[in-house]
């Protein structure tokens, strides 16, 4: 929740135009950390078979990197 609040403050208090690619990436890295915590601790996949865990973690990484790359092109 702390990461969410920090991300929200960064996103709202500073105007993050699309030309500025660093701030969206910072927000997405924070999102990735939160998402990975959800996968590992809430979904309890840290003890799951490696391939299974990679499937869900891979989804998160793929989506965030895809969005990040698309935004960077703008």
């Amino acid at each position, binding site marked *: *929740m702390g990461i*969410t*609040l920090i*991300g*929200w403050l*960064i*996103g*709202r208090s500073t*105007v*993050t*135009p*699309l030309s500025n690619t660093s701030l*969206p990436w910072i*927000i*997405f890295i924070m*999102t990735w950390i*939160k*998402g990975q915590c*959800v*996968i590992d*601790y*809430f*979904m*309890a*996949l840290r*003890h*799951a*078979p490696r391939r*299974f865990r990679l*499937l*869900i973690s891979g*989804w*998160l990484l*793929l*989506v*965030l990197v*895809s*969005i990040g790359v*698309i*935004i960077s*092109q*703008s």
Partner: protein
Amino acid sequence: MNAINSAALKKVPGDLAMWVFIMAELAVFALLLISIALAAHQQPETFRAGVQTLHPIFGLLNTFALLSGSACLVYAVEQSHDYPQRILQGLFATLLLGSVYVLFKSIEYYSLWQAGYHLRSGTFYFLYYFVTFFHFMHVLLGMVIVFVVRQRIQQGTYPQIEDQHAGLESAGSYWHMVDLVWLVLFPLLYLVYL
């Protein structure tokens, strides 16, 4: 299936069928989330103007509500072998926090609608309503699943404690998936395009 594989599968929380369903849902959400980014790439000004009309506080509070709901579900799962009363309390708290999400999202939809922003108000609003409402329906389904599991535990209709634990884990896995999707949707709609 050999013994090693079945031992490995046992480490996956909940029912494997639920995970197949979750992965199908994640695939659909991936397409929708990337579609938002692609549309914003094509129409940055439309998106920037659209994001300004959203309610950032509701977005933040909804994130807190879903994360807290997930934490309560984890608490319920952890108590599943020892304290039935605590399971019911944890699941009740999850339902309550899910209701908070539903309430805030409904207020947000109502105020946007009142301000004249509809599905046909442009690409941003079409995608906003379509994707967030799709997610909203998943939250409602998650609440139904949690409610049913809670009712079954309260009535003692699970034949064995292991079945109860598997039911709780499956409900939890679904809820956390909905949470995970929101964690990506929230910055994408409320923060990045300001």
